[in-house]
């Protein structure tokens, strides 16, 4: 059953991507237009799609900062400690 579902989605990969993009757009649209932001903690959160941008930027920052950090000499060959 699990396998059938995965295969079903994989065969329609383009449509899955399209639906995912629509969901992202709807989410930001809901945040910008309909959501009551009375529970926001800071003023910045009132900007439309603030958390969407925050999520994406966080992801990019984590990837690039970590890669940069790794290149400072942190990543080594697997047999490093055996030498």
């Amino acid at each position: 059953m699990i396998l059938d579902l995965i295969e079903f989605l994989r065969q329609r990969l383009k449509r899955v991507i399209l639906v995912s993009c629509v969901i992202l757009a709807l989410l930001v649209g809901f945040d910008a237009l309909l959501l009551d932001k009375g529970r926001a903690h800071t003023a910045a959160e009132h900007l439309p799609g603030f958390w969407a941008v925050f999520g994406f930027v966080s992801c990019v920052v984590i990837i690039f900062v970590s890669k940069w950090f790794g290149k400072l000499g942190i990543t080594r060959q697997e047999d490093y400690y055996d030498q």
Partner: protein
Amino acid sequence: MINNLWLHPGLILMAGALALPLVKGRLFRPYLLLVPLLAFGAVMMMPQGMYGVFPFLEWDLTFGRVDRLSLVFAYIMTLMCIIGTLYGLHVENPFEMAAAWIYVAGSLGVIFAGDFLVLFLFWEVMAFSSVFLVWFRRRPESVWAGFRYLLVHAAGGMVLLAGIVLLYHATGDLGFHQLDVSRPTLPVYLILIGFILNAAVPPLHAWLPDAYGEATVSGAVFMCAFTTKTAVYALARGFAGMEILIPLGVVMALYGVVYAVLENDARRLLAYHIISQVGYMVAGVGIGTELAINGACAHAFAHILYKGLLFMGVGSVLYMTGKSRFTDLGGLYSRMPRAFVFTLIGGLSISAFPLFSGFVSKSMIVAAGFDDHLYWAAFLLTLASAGTFLHTGLKVPYFIWFGKNNCTKDTWEKAEDPPVHMQLAMGIAAFLCIFIGVYTPYLYDMLPYAAVYKPYTAYHVTESLQILLFTALGFFVFLKKLTPKPVISLDMDWFYRKGGRVFLLGAQKGMDYLSARAHQYLGQALPRRLNKFSQSGPARLSLLLIRPLWYLTGVPVKGPEGVEKRFTDTFNQSLFSIGSSAVFIILVLMVLLFFVT
């Protein structure tokens, strides 16, 4: 420890562990399940109060302080013990499960300890029993990782003990209560160091990925649940509101995320995410409000289940294929679909997806941060949660079950869903992860304080979904950047792994040098000189006196025919020389003696 009909669940596990090697045959597996069930039952039936108080020397040792804080930890730990034991039913070695149970008993001992002596006793039991869960993997690397684990914990234990002794010296009280965190003294700091070493706070954290990556398949499931969470309990009990824990917790949350990007071994990646997740709890303890402490407890509760589930999912891949590195795996969804779904549920729970357990626990700590106007901490913790989803929710499932297929033919053929008991254990953990996320009173009613928190508001759900789904977008956009490479990352253990070697090399070379010099001077030069001195000393001394007389009389002194040569020859060959040497040495000794006394 029976006192007023109170039975310590740790005692049940310890007795069960001691009898375990004696149980053979068909009774073995039912017995394995019975003992943790009994321990869980003992916790369920336990009324609050003080039990197991024994006078010892001049102190009263308290083995059973039962209150809401200790109960919530004991509940989840004994529950996890059942799940972990079920997962490890295939293990033939009875000593492995015995070690695991004694380890859990150690945790429970700490949780119920009412004073620092009992706490320290069980603290050490944990370290010395859990190390066997690493050693029983029986790889050469495991042996060394185990020794490193033990040494680090022994050092941490010593610091903790020093703190306890100094605290007792200063206050005369051994009771384990909230410490004075507003004006911390040296003993308080020493106890704190002992605790945060077990909580894996950088830079005292490297033992965790080092040992957990090398533990046995079922051993890692136990280890990921107990050591760090027991430390979180100890911090919540003694250090609530200690402000330094807030930045430390935030650093932990980010540190684990950064290393997870670089990690190629799935179990080590999960280990780094323990550091990250425990960071939330440590920060929660640092914030110290009722909501924050509730959040730390709730997150520890949820974490034990989803992290156990993740280690079980990835462990089942390791168990079936013998591989845990992403560069040896990939594309396994058609071979191990159930393990994939269970791991995904664990991944969504740790990522705090709505309707999963992390959502109702992690957000409590972040909310407490916002409520306390600690915006930098709250925003950085939120940033780290994006990283959590990036790795545990996306990277782990994607690069094991999808992505590029790096499996060898052998790996591919071995890969299939694990035995039923493993699936059952994962199923129970997965169910609880969702149940906690859906039915919040189950967890919230167990928390120590009455602080009210409502996670399911439209704003919070939309906020979380945006962060998570746009993180997913970033994952797929930068997928190539995230492709694992067959590398390792250096961490703080470098200092004692490489540093240890430098020390060894220095010690060896230094000793070689010292030995050579000692041989040269003490073994050769000094005896030679002494010998020469005792042989020719008396003659020379006599010459010193007699030479001026010869010069006065005018006899030839130097040269082969001179009196000097004849004198020394006679001196050396005659018996007189032996006697005179003896007299001379006695004289020298007397002079020495005179100066020494």
